[in-house]
């Protein structure tokens, strides 16, 4: 069961609907592993529901009622997007993340994700990089792999899917969320024994600390 949870701000943003698409998939991934946070979200939805009850009703809706109540079954609701086919990613990822990855990459096969070299023993697949600066990546790191010491251009959220890693703030295993504020600089090290796959959501690319790593990343495409 998850030991590290999203900050209150992210859970509240998920319950209220204020978070963006990529934060919502990261939180839903954590919630799959974390019954306590699911209960917290449900509690906040009860609070919002009670506030909905207390709203001053809009009169304009009354006449629609009379017309619409008659035949709810005659209206239909739009179908959901195409369901993701089963692939090797299904074994390690919760449903909302499988769907998200499928929509962004067209595959649910781990080995067919757009992996590229990131560092020794570490691969990265970019799922989203948009004009607003949002960047969503999967990392796949071999046991014992060491990430370069890096800072972040923005707050960064990570959720672990397989294996575990540690840095000076703690040990993060399956379902755990690390909220790394942009001030922190950290050097995650992957545990022995298992490949670590994690989803990372941030606003701008992390800034590698050493000049050499920065140059290397620039040459390699980031």
């Amino acid at each position, binding site marked *: *069961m*998850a030991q590290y949870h999203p900050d*209150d*701000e992210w859970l*509240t*943003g998920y*319950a*209220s*609907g*204020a*978070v963006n*698409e990529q934060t*919502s*998939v990261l*939180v*839903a*991934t954590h*919630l*799959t*592993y*974390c*019954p*306590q946070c*699911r*209960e917290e979200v*449900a*509690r*906040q*939805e*009860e*609070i*919002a*529901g*009670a*506030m*909905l*009850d*207390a*709203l*001053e*009703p*809009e*009169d*304009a*809706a009354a006449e*629609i*009622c009379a017309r*619409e*109540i008659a035949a*709810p*079954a005659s209206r*239909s*609701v739009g179908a959901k997007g195409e369901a993701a086919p089963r692939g090797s990613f299904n074994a390690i*990822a*919760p*449903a*909302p993340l499988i769907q*998200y990855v499928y*929509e962004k990459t067209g595959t649910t096969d781990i080995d067919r994700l757009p992996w590229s070299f990131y560092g020794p023993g570490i691969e990265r697949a970019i799922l989203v990089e948009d004009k607003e600066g949002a960047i969503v990546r999967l990392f796949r790191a071999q046991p014992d792999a060491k990430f370069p010491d890096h800072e972040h251009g923005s707050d960064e959220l990570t959720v672990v899917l397989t294996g575990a890693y540690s840095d000076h703030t703690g040990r993060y295993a399956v*379902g755990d969320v690390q909220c790394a504020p942009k001030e922190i600089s950290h050097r995650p090290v992957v545990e022995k024994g298992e490949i670590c796959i994690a989803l990372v959501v941030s606003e701008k690319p992390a800034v590698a600390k050493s000049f050499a790593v920065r140059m290397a990343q620039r040459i390699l495409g980031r």
Partner: protein
Amino acid sequence: MCLSHNSINDLNTRGAERELHRDVEERTVFLAQVKTRRCKASYERLYQYYAPRICAFLRQKGADERISQEIMQDVMTRVWHKADQFDEKKSSASAWIFAIARNRFIDVIRQSKRSEVDPNDPLLAHREEPAPDSRLQQGERISALKAAISELPGDQAEVLQLVYLSGMTQQTAADRLSIPLNTVKSRLRLALEKLRRRMEYV
């Protein structure tokens, strides 16, 4: 068979000690009736109650009158078609309908996607021990919650409104109120702690 007007009246006239919790339970019962018996009379009651409130909610989030009515109709259509997904043990009708309206707003207005947990996910983790049994009955919890919301200090209630009804991020709420982000966070935290305590104990 579905709820007749007589049985609705029976619901309305249950014991006086239940009076306080009556309408919450009633709406949750109506929704359960739609779910199990496709009951039109219950749906009608839900429509009359929620349609004007969903419109008010969407207006608060910034939708104009026409769009808010369109989204409201879509939300209420979903209430009919998706009632089988409602679980009266897990949430009240209002919380469930809030979530549908919130999600439709994200879809239609923000043109963004929202991810939800799949209750049938093979990876879904469950509590090792069941949730503590000291919890109140749903109707009691909701009326305790409503009383607690109405007793919140004005500055905390204001933050709650901006966050849950207007759907603002905490940073946007701070900008709107011209107060530091940390003040928004602490007001929200204080409010949520109070509400949580009142939902769990008499």
